[in-house]
């Protein structure tokens, strides 16, 4: 029997690019939280610059992500309903409790970690910047014990975000591509690639002359980046074909557009591995940092675009696919650029403030300054 669709109204995509933005930023936030715990435990070998970059990525993305999520609600003004009608059997409802918890913890962890840097602002000649030093909320010292326990709690909270965001979509039996263990795993492993990309943006924003030599990116930092990128990109390349082969209705590998998407993703992940190998061998000046960021961020972001947006163009029932073209307005390109712009704006303001400080404090890693490599 030969069937040709004659009159089949396409189903509009219900989850807009905002959802991709949310998954991108919140994934980077929880991955940065986990990387920060590891880097803080190894604090005698990792640099203050790297750890600062991680906490900033964690905190900024944990604030930006929920904004994108709220925008994906067509009724953002009704967000309160999540709390008025809590629904423990819906993963999205559970997420409405887990997400603010994580965002709060991420900001607290970043604040605790950067208190010494905030305190330095009182040495600024600008009276307004001096006043920002009051944000330390007292002269007390942040103990390593308090820092580690808060960071670990945030890391655990980050894992609950990975769990809920993954399962929220994986429970949808209507779409076989989502309804499989490979989809949350794919989002989890690639989140680390995004976190590293955004961390490199922060490092690029930090003025090298304001970062003391012993605080600059250490060899251990670079090894963490290398191992993470190689491991997560390899896992992504393993999970991706498994994920794609679960489309039960027809073979995605036979569809030209999907062949292009998979080829692009594989090239991206291979590029991430090359970046990972290169990062321990190259000087980390701004052009290199920005190139590394571009490669890693595009790979992480495009995977989310393909697995969330393009999947929605596959029909549940008909032969399809349903067409989608990216609108230029707030629900499309403007929204994507707007969220990136907001992230960059916050990151620029915060790193500028940290650049202002006249760092006088010493840290334990001073003794290991010989490991520090020039970042120009």
């Amino acid at each position: 029997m030969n069937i040709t669709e004659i009159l089949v109204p396409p189903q509009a995509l219900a989850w807009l690019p905002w959802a991709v933005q949310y998954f991108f930023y919140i994934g980077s936030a929880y991955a940065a939280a986990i990387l920060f715990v590891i880097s803080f435990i190894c604090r005698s070998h990792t640099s203050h610059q790297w750890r600062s970059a991680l906490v900033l990525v964690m905190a900024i993305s944990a604030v930006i992500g929920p904004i994108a999520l709220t925008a994906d609600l067509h009724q953002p003004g009704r967000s309160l309903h999540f709390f008025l009608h809590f629904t423990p059997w819906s993963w999205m409802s559970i997420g409405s409790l887990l997400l603010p918890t994580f965002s709060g913890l991420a900001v607290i962890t970043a604040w605790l970690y950067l208190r010494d840097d905030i305190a330095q602002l009182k040495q600024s000649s600008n009276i307004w910047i001096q006043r920002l030093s009051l944000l330390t909320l007292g002269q007390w010292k942040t103990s390593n014990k308090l820092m580690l326990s808060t960071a670990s709690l945030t890391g655990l909270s980050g894992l609950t975000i990975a769990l809920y965001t993954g399962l929220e979509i994986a429970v949808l039996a209507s779409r076989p591509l989502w309804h499989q263990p490979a989809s949350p795993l794919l989002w989890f492993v690639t989140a680390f690639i995004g976190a590293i990309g955004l961390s490199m943006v922060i490092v690029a924003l930090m003025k090298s002359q304001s970062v003391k030599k012993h605080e600059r990116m250490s060899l251990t930092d670079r090894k963490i980046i290398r191992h993470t990128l190689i491991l997560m990109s390899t896992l992504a390349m393993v999970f991706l074909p498994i994920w794609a082969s679960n489309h039960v209705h027809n073979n995605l590998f036979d569809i030209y557009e999907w062949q292009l998407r998979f080829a692009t993703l594989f090239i991206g992940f291979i590029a991430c591995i090359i970046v990972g190998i290169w990062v321990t061998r190259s000087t980390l000046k701004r052009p290199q940092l920005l190139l590394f960021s571009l490669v890693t961020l595009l790979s992480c972001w495009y995977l989310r675009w393909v697995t969330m947006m393009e999947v929605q163009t596959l029909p549940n029932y008909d032969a399809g696919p349903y067409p989608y073209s990216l609108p230029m307005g707030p629900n499309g390109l403007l929204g994507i650029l707007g969220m990136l712009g907001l992230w960059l704006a916050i990151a620029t303001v915060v790193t500028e403030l940290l650049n202002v400080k006249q760092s006088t404090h010493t840290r334990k890693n001073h003794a290991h300054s010989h490991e520090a490599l020039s970042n120009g």
Partner: protein
Amino acid sequence: MDKSKRRLIGSIGAISAGAVIAPISSANASATVIIRNNEAADRKGMVGKRYAMLVDLRKCVGCQACTIGCSIENQAPIGQFRTTVKQYEVTLDNGSTEAKNVTSFMLPRLCNHCENPPCVAVCPVQATFQREDGIVMVDNERCVACAYCVQACPYDARFINEETLTADKCTFCAHRIEEGLLPACVETCVGGARVIGDIKDLGSEISLLMAKHRQEIKVLKPEAGTQPHVFYISLDNQFVSNVEGKAAIYDPKGDRA
């Protein structure tokens, strides 16, 4: 009726009728807990009844009167539909002389008011619920329009209404049924293809028709475990779960693509 259409209809019947009729006695059909979100008194509907629809595809001519009737009654935005009739061109490729004939296949689509509705279970604010009479509804004053239910529906029966910016779907015209009227689509169907009624009432028209056509009744995607309550007579197996064919040609228009 031309021969090829008769051939199409003739190929019905491979799926066991038992799998289709099972939803009728679905109270014990599934061991899993089915979430209906209908504890509130105003969410009960007509207790003691179970509404369902039977669509006799042999009688559907694809006139879209139901589509229009529904759009007028429920005021869905232009281009968005609570019900519509999908149309396919079908030819046979079995080498027979009939293979050269081209025929049309019409498939009226609407919410299946499933006995195990996946849309209700995922709603994070319990805005969508299933009444005791089986009708799945949306409280669009509570709906946050997260579109989780739209994604959960395996039948593409839901959408985000562009005007109200909340989840929207067929309600079996519950507001009309409660007044003793027929749903707009049933009222306007020129061929009498759509029959709605209470399947718990064994003397109702739908119950009698379902008993009469017991062997040839099918539902969409029975394998999804949703236990749909829109039943079809003369649904070819090729259209039960997933249509394999040539895609429609669309003309994407920005946001409305």
